[in-house]
Structures are given as structure tokens and as C-alpha cells.
């Protein structure tokens, strides 16, 4: 019984370390079962990660043999305007789409948390944009955001969303918000459902209003969930590629070229593999640091054990 609840809880938390023990049997069999997929991870994830570092220490254009240059690629990046601009675009995109999606997702989750007419239907409607083909959505949103497009039409404005350096990133972020609000809604709904009814009920009996309830009970108890959401948002920002590639091609004037897109252009368009690999390694180190935090966050969640 105790084991069952602990297991159910760790399932809810989304992470648990393997139990020690398990039935004793031939050692190698279990390992053997895991090997096929481990092999794929090693060949296509681990090996490239190591290889990225090796390539980043060379200049290589696919046609002439690579030459070793030490940390020159990294030093060059420090003074490279394109690199810093891409970092700025990535941070900007993250800040534009992230907080807005959290707030919307949280608002919707709060509205859907208790029974209401059509609750499941609403939840589906808000969630559906997250699963639709993101390329198809990027292409069609580029049409939606045209100067003579329906978004300008309905709002009765004429903003050159994707063709102006001032607004292009914002235009792309609108798609990001539209696609991620429902995602965060689901995560917040799960978080809200894990807050014990008795707690909010007790606070309400003590005379706490809706806002006080939110400030003193709901938000503090959701802190671990917020941490996860923030990490997910940062990783999503670092990954963002197809909306820029498709909607603006990184333009105008590189004002929407993200880090992921810069890696692609440096490496696979301009064939500067070393430089592209160096940017990748920096991204990797960043993600690694974030991963450590992420795992800490989960441990925090386990400690709180809501």
C-alpha cells in the first residue's frame, strides 16, 4: 500500500529514480533489452555531442580537410555581431512568447479548474493548437499576418507584421503564444488539481477572498510547477527554428534570426562547420546548466510532495 502510493505519487511527479532491487535474475538480460535503443542514443546523440566539441576546434568546409585552430572559433564569436544579434533575438523571442503564454495558460486553467458548462470542449479547443503541424501553421500564419491579411483586417489596423524589423519578432511570437498557451494550460491544470481541496476550503472558511487565496495558497503551492514551466520555455526558445525559417527567413535585416537558425546557416548554408559547432557547444553548455537546475527542481517537487 505504502509502496503503491509512493509509486503513484512519483508517477504524478513525472520522475522517479529507479527502485533499488527488483527481482533477482540473470544480470545481462535486462541490460540486453535496453541495448538496442541505447545504441541509437550513443550513435546519434552522445557521439554528436562529443563530436561537436571536436569540430568546434577546427575550420572545416566539407571539401578541404579540417585544420586544427584551437579555441579560435570561440574567440571569434565573442566579437561576432551576428552571434550576439542571434542571442538577442532568441532571448527576445523567449520573453515575448513565454510570459504571455504563461499568463494566458494560467488564466484559462483557473477558469477551467472547477466544473463549468463545456469544460472538456473548452480544454480541447485551447489545447488543439499545440498539436497541429507547426510548419503548416507557420506558413498559414505568415498569410494571416500579411499587410492585407485577416488579423490586420479584423483589428482594423495595418501593421506590416513580418516585413518590419520593429514588429517581425512580435509577429512570430504571436504564433508562439497561440501554440503554447494551451500547453501551459494543461500543465497548470494538473498543478491546480494537485492542490488539496481541504486547503482552499479551509482558507475560504477563514474568510480569504479569491485574490488572497490566489496569493497565499495557489501561487506559492504552484511554485515548483512554475519552475518547470520556465525551464521548458527557455529550452523552447533555444530550439525555435521553423517559425523564423519559414515566416521571415530570419529577416528583415536578420532581426528574427534565432541562435538555432544561425547554427543552421553558418554550418549548412555557409559551410563554416567549426564556427557552427562552436555555437552549438555554447548552446549545449547552456542546456547542460539548465538540466542540472531542472533535475534540482524535480527534487524540490519530491520534497514538497504535494
Amino acid at each position: 500500500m505504502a509502496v503503491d502510493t509512493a509509486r503513484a505519487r512519483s508517477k504524478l511527479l513525472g520522475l522517479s529514480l529507479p527502485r533499488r532491487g527488483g527481482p533477482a535474475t540473470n544480470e545481462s538480460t535486462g541490460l540486453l533489452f535496453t541495448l538496442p535503443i541505447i545504441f541509437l542514443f550513443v550513435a546519434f546523440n552522445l557521439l554528436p555531442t562529443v563530436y561537436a566539441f571536436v569540430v568546434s576546434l577546427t575550420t572545416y568546409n566539407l571539401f578541404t580537410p579540417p585544420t586544427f585552430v584551437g579555441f579560435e572559433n570561440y574567440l571569434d564569436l565573442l566579437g561576432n555581431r551576428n552571434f550576439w544579434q542571434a542571442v538577442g533575438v532568441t532571448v527576445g523571442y523567449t520573453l515575448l512568447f513565454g510570459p504571455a503564454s504563461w499568463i494566458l495558460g494560467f488564466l484559462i486553467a483557473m477558469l477551467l479548474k472547477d466544473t463549468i458548462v463545456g469544460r472538456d470542449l473548452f480544454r480541447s479547443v485551447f489545447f488543439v493548437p499545440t498539436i497541429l503541424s507547426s510548419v503548416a501553421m507557420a506558413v498559414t500564419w505568415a498569410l494571416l499576418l500579411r499587410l492585407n491579411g485577416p488579423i490586420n483586417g479584423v483589428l482594423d489596423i495595418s501593421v506590416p507584421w513580418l516585413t518590419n524589423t520593429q514588429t517581425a519578432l512580435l509577429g512570430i511570437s504571436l504564433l508562439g503564444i497561440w501554440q503554447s498557451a494551451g500547453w501551459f494550460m494543461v500543465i497548470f491544470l494538473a498543478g491546480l488539481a494537485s492542490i488539496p481541496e481541504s486547503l482552499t476550503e479551509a482558507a475560504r472558511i477563514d474568510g480569504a477572498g479569491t485574490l488572497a487565496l490566489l496569493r497565499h495558497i495557489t501561487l506559492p503551492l504552484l511554485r515548483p510547477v512554475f519552475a518547470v514551466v520556465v525551464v521548458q520555455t527557455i529550452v523552447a526558445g533555444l530550439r525555435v527554428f521553423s517559425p523564423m525559417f519559414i515566416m521571415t527567413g530570419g529577416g528583415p535585416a536578420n532581426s528574427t534570426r534565432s541562435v538555432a537558425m544561425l547554427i543552421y546557416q553558418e554550418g549548412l548554408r555557409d559551410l563554416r562547420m567549426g564556427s557552427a559547432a562552436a555555437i552549438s557547444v555554447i548552446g549545449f553548455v547552456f542546456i547542460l546548466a539548465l538540466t542540472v537546475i531542472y533535475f534540482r527542481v524535480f527534487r524540490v517537487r519530491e520534497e514538497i510532495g504535494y
Partner: protein
Amino acid sequence: MARSKWLRRQSTNLVRLAVLLALAAVTLFPLAWIVTGSLKPLEQVFAIPVQWVPDPIQPQNYPDAIQATDFSRPLLNSVIVTSSQVAINLVLCSLAGFGFAKYRFRGREQLFLGVLAMTLLPLQVIMIPLFLIVKGLGWVNTYQGLILPTAASAFGVFFMRQYISTIPSDYVDAARVDGASELTIFRKVVIPQCIPALVTLGVMVGLSSWDEFLWPLIVVGGRELATAPLAMAQLRSLYQTPFHFILAVAVVMVIPPLLAFLFAQRQIIQSVSQTGIK
């Protein structure tokens, strides 16, 4: 007293409903525009105010669009890639999940943590070396190059391990006492109990596989192996395709994930809320 409380609750509910309806309308607006646009004559696509009912309704746009954009081969390629990646993960993730959940071996914990770490390693930071490796294998512009490098789902291993852990070990032990081989136990005892989890896993892998854009962009050279997202992105850059055709093709691309969602909505939402990892 009780009555006024009831009244107040009803009015807050009404406000809640109104806000939800407004937000739902905003969410659905782009989709409604895309779907109706795909059925319009070209000159009505950008009509302002938006013409919500096409006049005449042109379902013929769909076959015309597929033909004009040469889209059936990309769709077929996407079906091949997606079903292969789903199949690979159904087999390998449940095998690995079984291994991690029901066996004890040296380095198990470290290996499992290593797999977990993979869920946070995006393709974006390994695309350059991965391309070089795949190029070295001579796999550029081949199906295996398109399918294998991005196939393995770390989320899938984690997910299957969690699920198989909940199957009582007694079943496994009983079968072993009866003399079943380990692989038979996997096939005859574990798999039949994993069907719900396998459905969820298949849908989740299928969704992300269908959506994959960056890797095909890197590894596919010509038109022959282009997947649907690749071909779709090219429509945009070529800028020669009439808009109502672009919208029709977009709707076609959105139908499979939509069907998957209708079919497995509960599982999808559950797995997102449990793990937060797609």
C-alpha cells in the same frame, strides 16, 4: 442569504463562461480562416471583412491543390517516416522499459539517468556533427538517414519504464517459474498489459515525428524524399502557389494530428500533464 450566494455564484459562472468563449473565439479564429479559405475561390481569400462562408464552396480546391503542388509524394514520405519511427519506438522503448523496470543490472541507475538526460538534448545543438556523421555513413538523402538518427525517443523509454513498473512482478516471476524464456515473458506477459501505454506512446511519437522539420531539411537533398513539412515550407518560399491551394494543403497536413487527438485526447493530455515533456 443562501439564495444571494447562489445568485452570486451563477453570475461569476456567467462571467467565466463569457471570458472563456471570447478566448475560444480568438483561438479558433486562425483555424476558421484557414479552413474556410481552403474552400474559397482565390479572390475571396483575403476579402476584408472576412468572408466566413465561401461562395461558391469549392471542395475541388483539395484535389487541385495536391496535384498542383505535387504533394502526394511528400505525404507518402511523411507517412513512411512517421510510421517507421512509431514502430521503432513501440518495440525499442517497451524492451528498454522492461529491462529498466524488471531487471537488476550493474549501472542500471546511471544508464537510466543518461537516457533521461537525452530528453533535454535538442537536435538544434547537435545538428552539425549529426549531419557530418550521417554524411560519413553515406546516408544523406536516404530513408535510413531520414528515419534513424532522430528516431529514438528518450521520453518513450522513461514512459514505458514507469508503466511497466506498475505491473506486479509476480506475473513475471510466475511465467519464469513456468519455464518461459525472458523474451517470451516480454511478448506474452508484459506487452499485453501495456496496450494503453503503447497507444499513448505511439500517438506522442507520431505527433512529433509528423511535425519534424529541421532534420529532414538538413538530410534531404532533392524532391524525392521531401516530407510533407519540407514540401509545405517550399510552397511558402516559392511564392508561386495560389493562396487557397496553400491553405488546402495546410488543412490536409493538419488532419492526421487532429484525428490522433480526437482518438487519444485523454492520453495525450494526461501524458503532457504528467511529464511536461512531449
